[in-house]
């Protein structure tokens, strides 16, 4: 279609893009501001000098190595687990014939119907009352249960019904010949899965892995809950929020912003590097 006013379109799109980007720029600019420079009138966008002291302060006040380690461990465990379980279950549902397959598939689909908030309370209570863990007795009394361990942060996200659905749909279209050739060569199903199916489904696994990684890194509510039970398990978002809530906001806003920049940066870099895969994932999963 020929456009009569291309400049008008550009104007709208650029204005919208500015509206999207400016809050990020404000975050970065504030993270460089000196004491007394942020939150005072009149508002100034640019800092007087680009000082790195806020970043140093953020790293010291936040115990950044611990937060970073927790975030990395949890995100990695969740991503690996979702990829493995989705690929295994997806392969069984797509390429193996067994009684109950349709029932299991319907079960997987129905798990996507339940919103996460419904599980927040019971999952937390189940973890706290986990028998014989964290000082609990056989009936789950007396101790802190699984909340003593870092697995508590990962548990609700280890398996993902959507991930199983996605890999299964992708595996339906794998050519029979390749799998059959391997079977005739005497390969067991596990070997067929690991040596042939996993490499052949790399695109969908990259997409699923990236979606899972970003979500896990950014997750806030569950991590907040677990770290109120066990402060050693704080992740980056929870730690920065705690800093925000417990310091004098007028004076230390730049330190909080520096912490936010540091916590956002890894995922932002990953997104910029692999955004084609990520955007395809969002298309596949619908809206975020």
């Amino acid at each position, binding site marked *: 279609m020929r456009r009569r006013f291309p400049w008008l379109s550009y104007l709208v799109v650029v204005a919208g893009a500015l509206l999207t980007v400016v809050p990020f720029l404000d975050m970065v600019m504030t993270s460089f501001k000196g004491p007394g420079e942020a939150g005072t009138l009149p508002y100034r966008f640019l800092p007087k000098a680009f000082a790195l002291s806020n970043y140093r302060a953020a790293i010291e006040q936040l115990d950044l190595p611990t937060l970073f380690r927790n975030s990395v461990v949890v995100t990695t465990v969740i991503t690996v687990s979702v990829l493995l379980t989705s690929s295994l279950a997806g392969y069984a549902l797509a390429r193996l014939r*067994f009684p109950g397959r349709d029932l299991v598939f319907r079960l997987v689909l129905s*798990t996507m119907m339940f919103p996460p908030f419904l599980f927040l309370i019971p999952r937390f209570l189940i973890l706290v009352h986990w028998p014989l863990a964290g000082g609990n007795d056989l009936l789950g009394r007396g101790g802190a249960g699984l909340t003593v361990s870092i697995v508590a942060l990962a548990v609700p996200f280890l398996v993902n019904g959507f991930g199983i659905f996605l890999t299964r749909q992708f595996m339906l279209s794998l050519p029979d010949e390749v799998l059959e050739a391997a079977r005739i060569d005497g390969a067991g199903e596990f070997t067929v899965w690991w040596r042939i199916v996993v490499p052949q489904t790399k695109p969908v696994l990259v997409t699923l892995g990236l979606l899972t990684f970003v979500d896990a890194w950014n997750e806030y509510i569950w991590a907040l809950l677990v770290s109120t039970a066990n402060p050693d398990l704080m992740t980056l978002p929870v730690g920065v929020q705690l800093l925000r809530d417990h310091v004098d906001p007028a004076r230390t806003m730049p330190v909080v912003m520096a912490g936010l920049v540091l*916590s956002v940066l890894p995922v932002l870099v990953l997104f910029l590097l692999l955004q084609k895969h990520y955007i395809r994932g969002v298309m596949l999963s619908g809206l975020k």
Partner: protein
Amino acid sequence: MVNVLTPRSPERAPDPLPGAPAGHGRRRGRHRETVVAYLFLAPALLFFAVFLLLPLGFALLLSVSRWTGFDLGAIEPVGPDNFAALLADGSTFLVPVLTNTLLFALGTVALALTGSVVVATCVDRLRFQGLWRTLYFLPIVTTVVAVGNVWKYMYEPGGLANGVLNALGLGSVAFLQDPDTALPSVVVVQAWASLGSAILVLTAGLKSIPASYHEAAALDGAGPGTVFRRITLPLLRPSLLFVCVTQFLTGLQSFALITVMTRGGPGDATNVAALEMYRLAFDHGDWGTASAAAFVLFAVVLVVTLAQLRVFRRAGEDA
């Protein structure tokens, strides 16, 4: 919630394996295949049993019980009392909490939909597609803690939003402190954060409309406004509906942003159902009422989901 609206690819049962051994060996092969299949499914099924079905049953039990949260043997069934308490006169759950939830979801949909339709129609066939997409996607990959705090800071008296207002000669607004502006201010942020994915869906929808339709209409003398109203919008309806429903469902459930920005305040001005559930449970230890609140919200979500499935089915029959 992962949405259940993803266009389903046609269901296809895998073909029987060609060249599978026949007769006795075949039956043994079958048996082995069943064992292997359930081994592959075991981790997922185990997870669903322990962390999906069990919690669901536990939540149901809690919603009709009174419990202090310590001894599992001390759960005391009280019937529908928790639900009655939520819906009783003088309870804040229906008004303002549930009404806030609906306003929050509706407001987000209205804003995000309007914004994304405008941007998507403008960005369609513009240059630098990749750049625009990257920029509009930034909020989606950013943790809610960053989004919430940056906007909270921008809303402060010395923040960017008031800085702009002052520069335009307008007075400052106490965005998050004033009960009248707090909810709209949070809605703006939620809509801002979801604009990218809405634009993505609508741009894809626009691309699927053949250019010849527009050309034919233009040849018949239709102006750009008429083309947009008579051709673009009707053909875009499935994408629009999809954005509407998924945003609405997300809006009904989300409370992380509000937790970060206002914690439901001032007063109950931005308190929503999921946040109320969280606070009843983890601030007050009222597990029973909190679980009842969760199921009331779930009922709302379910009604919307089922209504949307019907609408989509009818839309599918029209097409």
